[in-house]
């Protein structure tokens, strides 16, 4: 029965293991030539679970025995190999033993781990000299303890075994061994701290001293330093109490501060160091012992060959360690020295490498060295700031102001792309975590910064933006060419910028690289998401315009493929495709975030998303699909708005259009060009709420609304005779269900429109300068919307009255015609008085509102009026035409 199962056959496994043992695992007699064969062994063992010794029920005794003996001989072979005098064979045995620790059955592991442990330990102690063997043994030991920690019944024994390991591991650390061994020894220590904290507990101080002395020695490569920093940050976990964490943090930040003293000597005012120290060590708090005990003190002399490099890497490692402590979980509550950390980061961020005039002892050579290190230091400083924000979450509140202040100042001065990206990222996280409360206060600052970085339009008019795109494409292609030549990281691709500067010198030098633009767009997206509609009057219109322009430009030359860059270089670099995606994301936020006015660029945005969605299979298409789904609600609003005419104080217009009076951020030129340029006449003034309210009165919207609504124009008359379209939330809906009573209401509604027109007329006579077509139209909206809804509600219990419906339809057609004329008329008025929109308009509008509501209440009360208002339809028309010369 088992023979039929093929590769799933359990009986196959012992055989497979034996053949592996025979063919691929080295043995004593034959030379071991090709180490890569081990990879095959490992993958086979892992894929087929050859060591698991697990067979499905019912158990077959033969199979169990065969498998057991096969694994027995496997283990035996490994142990023999691990004792071999030949290093390569011994190494193979150790590596495979590590694999066995992961893969073998629990029973076998528990039964024999002690034997394996001894074998492995003997390989990290003298007289073994080979680095290879030591490193492999450390890795295998680490795996063994990881597995062991999973058995709760072996905890105690494991802990005592682990204690025995610490000493040899420390010895490895202290000896001057190679990077490979150090790395693995540090990993072993991490495992111990994580799983057997008690074992490290006893050697806490010596572990700390060993790590710190290595860290300070300056002889380790970057990789090892990183791991050393990591294990140092984990160390307090071995005790797991508040005090050890706090003590370690204090030690690290004080050490950092003193290292910074060395690094920035002469580059900053002397008081700075003392100030930071005071923040780190509030008066009354006694200073902790130095990091790593006294032993590390003597190593901090700077007489080595490249003292600045050494200093830089030390500081970075300590900062990294600090970040880890702030972000990796800790079992108990700990006091985070927020003020101290912010002061420390502030100290790093505010250094710009220039010599203050008072101080002249520093050699230019040293200045050059330090200047080359500053960006890295600042990057790590920003990372600490990010870690503080991440680690403290809502508890950051009392300190947010200081952080925001620091970031704002830094963004203003910072020129390096990587640093800017980081700063934007922190701002983004801050915005998202701190919410509207912060967004309404720092929105303006973010916007002015973003405008500088998204500066597509510096000194360019229409024609240039296409060139810009072409240039961006060349930028991209030259970037990828660079990538072919050398495996460039994010940072080095920015350094490649000067190469393109040769192509178009005059424009490129002031452009931020794509990745900064992406970061800026993301920050803007966060701002719009969180606080796009509250207190955003001063920047919202320009930001909306900026985003549609950026998105249009980004997508102008078609969609770039996102796979290419991944293929060319392993790590993700920011590409044009990412930029397109980021710009579309920000655009969606701008369209969705409700503002005072209906999104002005909805049509263009929809078009962009629709086009993007056709790029099947890309992330961009996915996002565009999501965007269209989200925007659909905006096009066909379902929820009815809260606002209605019956609320006692309905003076939103008064607050309404402060937009045009506000001073724009930083007086940038590109912003003022937006203002002066032709603004969409229909989108500028209409309030979103009013528009939505007005949707029962589609006619009115059509008058001025552009193409996107054009198809509605035909609908209302059509629905009057076609009851199936009754669902539409437009006037047609009420028409189809109309009873005589309702039709009366409707007639009154249209009558009111005419009233409005009459009012318009009056109004224009009063103040001919303003051009408030939309305002008035929209103001009228709520009233008619309410009536329309009433009609829909009570429509169920009534008979249809086709005759009346037809009449209404014709009335409507009339109105359409007329209001078209009106809009033309107003068009001319608008063109003459375009620039003269003033505050007086608001007053005008409020009087209008009052007057309209007065009329409305009149019509409500007296049914007789309706017929009259119907008559007015014909008489109003010429009046308005007459109004035209008046207003001129």
């Amino acid at each position, binding site marked *: 029965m088992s023979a039929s199962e093929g590769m799933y056959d359990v009986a196959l496994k012992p055989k497979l293991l034996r053949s592996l043992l025979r063919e691929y695992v080295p043995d004593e007699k034959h030379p071991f030539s090709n180490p890569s064969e081990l990879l095959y062994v490992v993958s086979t063992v892992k894929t087929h679970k050859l060591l698991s010794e697990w067979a499905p029920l019912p158990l077959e005794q033969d199979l169990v025995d065969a498998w057991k003996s096969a694994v027995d001989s496997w283990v035996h072979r490994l142990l023999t190999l691990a004792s071999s005098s030949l290093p390569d064979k011994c190494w193979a045995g150790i590596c495979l033993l590590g694999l066995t620790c992961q893969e073998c059955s629990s029973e076998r592991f528990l039964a024999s781990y002690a034997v394996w442990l001894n074998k492995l330990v003997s390989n990290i102690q003298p007289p073994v000299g080979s680095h290879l063997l030591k490193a*492999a043994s450390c890795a295998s030991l680490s795996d063994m303890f990881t597995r062991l920690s999973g058995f709760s019944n072996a905890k105690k024994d494991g802990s005592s075994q682990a204690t025995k390991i610490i000493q040899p591991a420390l010895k490895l650390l202290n000896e001057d061994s190679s990077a490979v061994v150090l790395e693995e020894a540090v990993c072993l220590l991490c495992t111990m701290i994580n799983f057997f904290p008690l074992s490290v507990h006893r050697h806490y101080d010596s572990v700390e001293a060993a790590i710190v002395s290595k860290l300070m020695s300056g002889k380790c490569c970057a990789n090892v330093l990183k791991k050393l920093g990591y294990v140092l940050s984990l160390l307090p976990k071995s005790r797991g109490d508040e005090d050890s964490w706090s003590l370690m943090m204090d030690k690290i930040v004080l050490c950092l501060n003193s290292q910074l003293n060395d690094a920035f000597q002469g580059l900053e005012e002397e008081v700075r160091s003392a100030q930071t120290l005071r923040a780190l060590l509030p008066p009354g708090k006694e200073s902790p012992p130095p990091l790593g005990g006294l032993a590390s003190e003597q190593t901090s002399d700077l007489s080595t060959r490249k003292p600045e490099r050494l200093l830089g890497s030390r500081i970075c490692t300590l900062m990294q360690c600090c970040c880890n402590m702030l972000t990796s979980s800790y079992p108990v509550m700990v006091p985070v020295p927020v003020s101290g950390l912010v002061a420390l980061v502030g100290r790093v961020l505010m250094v710009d490498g220039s010599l203050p005039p008072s101080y002249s002892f520093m050699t230019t050579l040293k200045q050059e060295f330090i200047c080359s290190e500053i960006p890295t230091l600042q990057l790590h400083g920003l990372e600490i700031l990010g870690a503080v924000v991440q680690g403290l979450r809502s508890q950051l509140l009392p300190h947010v102001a200081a952080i925001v202040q620091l970031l704002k100042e830094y963004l203003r001065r910072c020129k390096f792309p990587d640093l800017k990206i980081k700063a934007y990222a922190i701002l983004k996280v801050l915005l998202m975590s701190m919410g509207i409360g912060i967004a309404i206060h720092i929105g303006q600052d973010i916007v002015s910064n973003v405008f500088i970085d998204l500066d597509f339009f510096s000194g360019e008019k229409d024609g240039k933006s296409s060139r810009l795109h072409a240039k961006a494409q060349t930028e991209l292609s030259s970037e990828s060419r660079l990538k072919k030549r050398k495996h460039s990281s994010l940072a080095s691709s920015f350094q490649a910028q000067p190469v393109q500067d040769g192509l178009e010198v005059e424009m490129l030098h002031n452009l931020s690289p794509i990745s900064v633009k992406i970061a800026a767009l993301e920050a803007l997206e966060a701002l719009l998401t969180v606080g796009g509609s509250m207190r955003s009057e001063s920047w919202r219109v320009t930001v909306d315009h900026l985003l549609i322009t950026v998105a249009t430009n980004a997508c102008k030359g078609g969609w770039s493929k996102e796979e290419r860059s991944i293929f060319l270089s392993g790590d993700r670099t920011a590409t044009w495709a990412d930029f397109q995606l980021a710009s579309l994301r920000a655009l969606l936020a701008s369209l969705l975030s409700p503002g005072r006015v209906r999104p002005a660029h909805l049509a263009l945005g929809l078009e962009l998303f629709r086009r993007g969605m056709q790029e099947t299979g890309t992330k961009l298409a996915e996002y565009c699909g999501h965007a269209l789904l989200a925007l659909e609600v905006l096009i066909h609003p379902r929820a009815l708005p809260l606002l209605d005419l019956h609320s006692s104080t309905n003076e939103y217009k008064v607050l309404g259009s402060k937009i045009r009076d506000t001073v724009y951020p930083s007086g940038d030129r590109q912003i003022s060009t937006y203002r002066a340029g032709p603004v969409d006449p229909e989108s500028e003034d209409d309030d979103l709420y009013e528009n939505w309210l007005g949707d029962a009165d589609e006619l009115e919207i059509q008058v001025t609304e552009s193409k996107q609504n054009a198809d509605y124009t035909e609908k209302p008359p059509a629905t009057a005779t076609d009851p199936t379209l009754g669902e539409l939330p437009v006037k047609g809906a009420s028409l189809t269900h109309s009873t005589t009573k309702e039709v009366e209401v409707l007639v009154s509604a249209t009558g009111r429109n005419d009233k409005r027109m009459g009012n318009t007329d009056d109004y224009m006579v009063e103040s001919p300068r303003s051009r408030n077509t939309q305002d008035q139209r929209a103001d009228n909206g709520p009233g008619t919307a309410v009536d329309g809804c009433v009609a829909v*509600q009570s429509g169920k219990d009534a008979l249809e009255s086709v005759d009346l419906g037809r009449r209404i339809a014709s009335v409507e057609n009339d109105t359409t015609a007329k209001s078209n004329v009106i809009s033309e008329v107003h068009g001319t008025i608008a063109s003459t008085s375009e620039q003269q929109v003033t505050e007086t308009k608001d007053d005008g509008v409020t009087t209008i509102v009052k007057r309209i509501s007065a009329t409305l209440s009149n019509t409500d009360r007296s049914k007789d009026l309706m017929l009259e208002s119907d008559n007015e339809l014909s008489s109003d028309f010429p009046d308005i035409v007459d109004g035209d010369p008046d207003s001129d």
Partner: protein
Amino acid sequence: METEVVIASSPTDVGISCWDLHTGEEHLRYKSCASPSHGLTSVAGRFLASSQIRESKSSSSSGSIQYWSWSKPQVEVRSFPAEPIKPVVSNSQGTYIAGGGVSGDIYFWEVATGKLLKKWHAHYRAVSCLVFNDDESLLISGAEDGSVRVWSLFLIFDDARREEMKHLFEYSFHEHSLRVTDVKTGYGGSNAIIVSASEDRTCKVWSLSKGKILRNVVFPSIIDAISLDPGEHVFYAGGRDGKIYIAGLNSPVTSNSNYGLHIIGALSEHSKGVTCLASSADGFLLVSGSEDGMIRVWDTRTRNIIRVFRHTKGPVSNVLVIRQPKRTSSTSLAPAVRRHGLPLPPPLEKFANNPDENAYVKVLIGPQTLPNQLLDSPYISVQTMEAQIKELQQQGSSAAAEVDVERLKSEQVRSVQMIQQWKKMYENLHQFCVSELLEGSHTESASGQNL
């Protein structure tokens, strides 16, 4: 799944009752609590906090704030603020407690340390209700002087910016003519709505983004409590006439209702006034507390009562629906914490301290993961082996060189042995040949002689 529990307190000292919302099972009753309206809150589900105002006691001049842990009925921590506090509210992470004083001041404490971080004068008369907005960056307060104010906590803590501003609040709504009895806010970030109820028999709906009134709903009776439906298509308003009115937020305006404009209907069963309301997480259940001491659970879909709890004879002042963390949830914490139990934080301080002392923030860092989730990654030996193989195959790398040296050494040893062997053989052969030759010459000479 977490269980939802109903907790209730009253202004007379009858403690805090606690029931399972879905099964109706009564849990522990926490002792000695007499809380004013809005004076009961759950701090991140970790413990209960309540403000206390006792008229009868000699110390009536200053109230207190008390903490109860879930597992013990006794008051564990008592704080004595500078003045009696009525409403208390905590943010969802349980890091801050805000309290509104009878003088109109708002107090803002950090829970972990008990420090009074800020205190500011918010209203001319006593603060009657406090609520955080959905992202907890704004605090909204209602007061007996009829005003509703919105505060940005960021601004409250930003000393430099605060001095530039003319006033501390973001909005101040004055449309209510009498005492504000309840304020609620919903989802939507900056576009959220705020609903406030007042003794002037109205509820008003405010737009946060625009800072103005959106809707004014006039009720037949004074509204003491409101609850916003989680989906925000209606809100419930509990009146002193014992009815819970349902007012539409998204519904079209109807004037055919018996109760008034915007009021869609009412739930009525109460004999006495409704004093407090709370909604379950899914929005299907509405819990109401009444002056007759009963707590009723309504199904909002059928508008029927599905459960009645009896809290006390006197009025109920607060009901809350809380997702209670599992009682066994402490196992997810680290062993040290599990052993000692998470202790309750220290009492709230009376006076604000020197800002320099706030340099440290006590915080629980990182995600508190289950210990066995830590085991995900860390097998490293195979990875190490791969790296080493790579190095071994690379000609001239130190590892390869090391192995080669070792191999050469052993080969050398073998070769030396071989050489010795060959030498020996050679010597043997030599010896043999020499002796052979010598013997040969002997015999030759002998034979020559013989010749």
